[in-house]
C-alpha cells in the first residue's frame, strides 16, 4: 500500500460506509477524492434510468387478480340447478292411450279430472277429450 485508500476503502467512502480514518484520508487526499468521484460517476452511469410506467399499467398490475373460484362456483351451482330441475320437472312424456284410459276411468267413476285434460277447450273434460287424447296418441310424427 502506498498510503492511499485501497479499492474497497475508496468504494466504502463513496457508499458512505467508510471508517472515520478512511473518510479523513479521503478529505485530505486529492488523488483518492478524484478516484472516488470517478467511482461515483461510474455508479451513476451504471444505475438504470428510471422508467415511467403509465398509470393505467400500474393500476392493472396492482389491481387484485380475478380469482377463478367464483366463476367455477357459479358454474357448479348452475349445473346443480339444472340437475335438480331435470330430476323434479314434470314428465315430458307425450300423452298416450294410458292417459286416455285413466281419464275415461275417472269420468266413469265420477271422480274429478284435472282441467288440463280439456283438450278441445269446451270448458269441461268429457268423453270427447278422452277421444282426443287417444287420437293424439296415435298421430304419426
Amino acid at each position, binding site marked *: 500500500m502506498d498510503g492511499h485508500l485501497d479499492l474497497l476503502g475508496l468504494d466504502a467512502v463513496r457508499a458512505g460506509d467508510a471508517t472515520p480514518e478512511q473518510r479523513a484520508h479521503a478529505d485530505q487526499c486529492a488523488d483518492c477524492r478524484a478516484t472516488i468521484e470517478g467511482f461515483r460517476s461510474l455508479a451513476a452511469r451504471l444505475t438504470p434510468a428510471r422508467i415511467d410506467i403509465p398509470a393505467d399499467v400500474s393500476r392493472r398490475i396492482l389491481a387484485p387478480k380475478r380469482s377463478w373460484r367464483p366463476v367455477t362456483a357459479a358454474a357448479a351451482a348452475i349445473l346443480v340447478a339444472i340437475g335438480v330441475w331435470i330430476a323434479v320437472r314434470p314428465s315430458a312424456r307425450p300423452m298416450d*292411450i294410458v292417459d*286416455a284410459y285413466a281419464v275415461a276411468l275417472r269420468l266413469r267413476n265420477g271422480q274429478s279430472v284435472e282441467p288440463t285434460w280439456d283438450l278441445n277447450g269446451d270448458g269441461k273434460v268429457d268423453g270427447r277429450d278422452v277421444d282426443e287424447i287417444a287420437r293424439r*296418441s*296415435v298421430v*304419426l310424427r
Partner: protein
Amino acid sequence: MKAALFVLGLIALLPEQESRFVAVEVYAETGAVPLAAWQIEIRSDAKIVAVEGVKEPPYYDPAALQGGRIILAQFTTEPHPPAGRVLVARVHMMESGKTDYAARLMAAASPGGERIAPRIDLVRVGGK
C-alpha cells in the same frame, strides 16, 4: 331390330313382382294380468290397407294407410278385460316381395291404470 324385339320379349316373360294381400294379427301376451289399455307401433315394408279391431276398431292415424308404419291403440273400461294371449287388432297389408314386420309396445295398462309391459307378437295370416 331383331335383337331389340328379342330383349323386349325376354322382359315380357320376366315374372311380375306380384302383390298379395295378407293380414297381420297383433297379440299382446299379458300373462295373468288383464289388459285394459294398449298402444303398439307396427312397421313393415308392406302397405297398410285396413285396420280391424276385436270389439271396436282401434285408434290410428288415417295418414298411416298406404304407408308402412302405424300406431294402434285402444282401451276398455269394462271391469274384466281379457288376460293371457290377447288378440288386440288385425292389420291388412299389401305385400310386394319379401316383407318384414316389427312391433313395438308403446304403452299398456292393467285395470286401474297401472302400466304393464306385455310382449307383442305379430302373426301373418294368408298370402303365400
